[in-house]
């Protein structure tokens, strides 16, 4: 055992555990931090993220709420204004629509409407995404919507390391941050380098370098895109994978830098294409990198249909590895 312990320079951990560790760590370090949401306490979190935290921190700081998304998100805003550092868990993005007023009309606007007097240091976490046969009302990917709104910051951790460390940065932020956790990622495992610490909430990151084409994505699509890049590699195509990490502010510089390296782009987004974050990414490319484009830009998004229940239909609706590979081929003119 000693040998093993000494040998481990990195920690392998699941995305779920990383997120729990992030919450726990934040609560240990700052007694203003508390967790609030539906079934975060006794149940242990819908996705078991907060399992064990109630026992450790008690019901005041791990606060089960009624099914009142608007009220408890609004209460989070008020608590943030009142000096606390709430982490509000909205079970899924689908239910966040019931709290849209508080997020968009209050959290995002208060600083501005008050002429800079009232900032809202709130963190809202929510699960997002499809892929588990949960049907149309439990399969939304609406992070792009939230990224539309000035005043919010929208983080989309796709890796275990980001799951572990984005929260700390979000809690340091004086303004509201929404963290979208793709439910398909909770079971993914990854390594966290020893000595890792808080990460920025501003920059996209190249997850794989390449020279022929940039595949730009975020969140739950990242593993698919990396797999597609592997497949392309087998064919001799060198794909760069850019993980946006944060949808607002969007790291335009990183996007354009990648375009300058490869001159060809595929954007992969589990959201719908019309008016989605993929549209925004491409618009930025056209605005700032038109003359670098050496092929039409392609998108792999969810089909413009509510997510069906039947497995084969759901799979057909969502971005999949073969579609990503095909899109890359098309962009490359092959």
């Amino acid at each position: 055992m000693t040998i093993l312990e000494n040998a481990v320079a990195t920690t392998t951990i699941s995305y779920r555990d990383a997120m729990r560790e992030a919450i726990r760590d934040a609560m240990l370090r700052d007694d203003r931090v508390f967790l609030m949401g539906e079934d975060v306490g006794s149940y242990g979190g819908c996705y078991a993220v907060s399992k064990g935290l109630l026992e450790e921190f008690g019901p005041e700081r791990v606060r089960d709420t009624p099914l009142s998304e608007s009220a408890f998100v609004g209460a989070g805003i008020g608590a943030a204004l009142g000096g606390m550092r709430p982490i509000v868990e909205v079970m899924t993005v689908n239910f966040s629509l019931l709290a849209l007023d508080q997020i968009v009309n209050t959290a995002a606007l208060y600083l501005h409407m008050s002429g800079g007097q009232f900032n809202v240091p709130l963190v809202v976490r929510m699960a997002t995404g499809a892929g588990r046969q949960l049907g149309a009302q439990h399969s939304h990917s609406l992070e792009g919507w939230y990224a539309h709104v000035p005043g919010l910051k929208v983080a989309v951790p796709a890796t275990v390391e980001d799951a572990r460390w984005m929260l700390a940065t979000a809690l340091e932020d004086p303004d509201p941050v929404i963290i979208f956790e793709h439910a398909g990622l909770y079971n993914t495992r990854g390594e966290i380098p020893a000595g890792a610490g808080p990460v920025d909430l501003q920059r996209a990151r190249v997850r794989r370098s390449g020279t022929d084409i940039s595949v730009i994505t975020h969140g739950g699509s990242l593993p698919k895109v990396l797999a597609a890049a592997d497949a392309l590699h087998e064919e001799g195509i060198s794909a760069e994978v850019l993980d946006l990490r944060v949808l607002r502010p969007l790291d335009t510089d990183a996007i354009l830098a990648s375009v300058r390296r490869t001159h060809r782009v595929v954007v992969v987004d589990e959201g719908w294409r019309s008016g989605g974050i993929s549209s925004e990414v491409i618009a930025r490319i056209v605005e700032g990198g038109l003359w670098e484009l050496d092929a039409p830009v392609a998108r792999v998004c969810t089909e413009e249909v509510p997510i069906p229940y039947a497995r084969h239909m759901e799979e057909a609706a969502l971005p999949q590895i073969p579609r990503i590979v095909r899109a890359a081929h098309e962009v490359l003119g092959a």
Partner: protein
Amino acid sequence: MSDKEHRQHLLARMLRIRRFEERCAELYQAEKIRGFLHLYIGEEAVAVGALESLTPDDAVVATYREHGHALARGLDPGSIMAEMYGKVEGCSRGRGGSMHLFDAAKRFYGGNAIVGGGLPLGVGLALADRMRGVQRVTAVFFGEGAVAEGEFHEALNLATLWHLPVLFCCENNGYAMGTALYRSESETHLTLKAAAYGMPAWSVDGMDVEAVEAAAHSAATAVRGGGGPHFLEFETYRFRAHSMFDPELYRDKAEVATWKLRDPLVTYRKKLSDEGHLDEAEWQAMEKEVKAEVDEAVSFAEAGTWEAVEDLTRFVHTEAVTG
């Protein structure tokens, strides 16, 4: 403060709101103020009476018809007027306007123009106080229209569930814009709704500033003392239209006239006069003083400056403190 002085103080506070609002109407028509403008005329007794019961430590969350609350809370009239002018000297730097008056120093949390939107916020402020062990009250004002919103029910439930120090102040002026209460609510006794969530609830004559003050004082004291949330319904009436552009098709002139007989300012002045707490000279002096205040507020707003357009994108994210 003697009883007489206190009563004159209440009257003067109401008078200041009245004259301020009248000037706003005038300035709106002169196009000095734009956007939506919701006047508080007729409802002055509610803000004055209720806020009289709060301490500076307490918090206030108001609605889009909040000039009266802002004035009663002690925001500088000049900064309010400048805000309506859109000047950078305004209490929200001209970013908010009539519906979004804010003042951190006064713990005045707006100016929320989403009906019902302020209730969860107030619950959260109270939650923070509760978790931090601070004994203070968050007063949340909202109209009776908000009672139809889910947020009202969610917020009241949460406040009672968590036993939070919130004073819910429902200003029932009878109309949600143009929709009469009986046309939108199956149960028009609003206190019953609050009571259903298990909190003490009273209905109060909102045209009687002393009744408002007494009820609010009692409720606020209970809230501050750890009694959990309380609910007050103030029955009141707005004498003017919902906003400046409103032909008032939804109510009879006779109804307005009837309510005007209960004008909180007029009746209270008469009451003080009748009871020997106000003579004509004092009234004239009060009028003169209020006029001077309002004149000064207008001058302040007129003299104010426009924020530089280069600053447009400020206040989206918190700015790093420099220096």
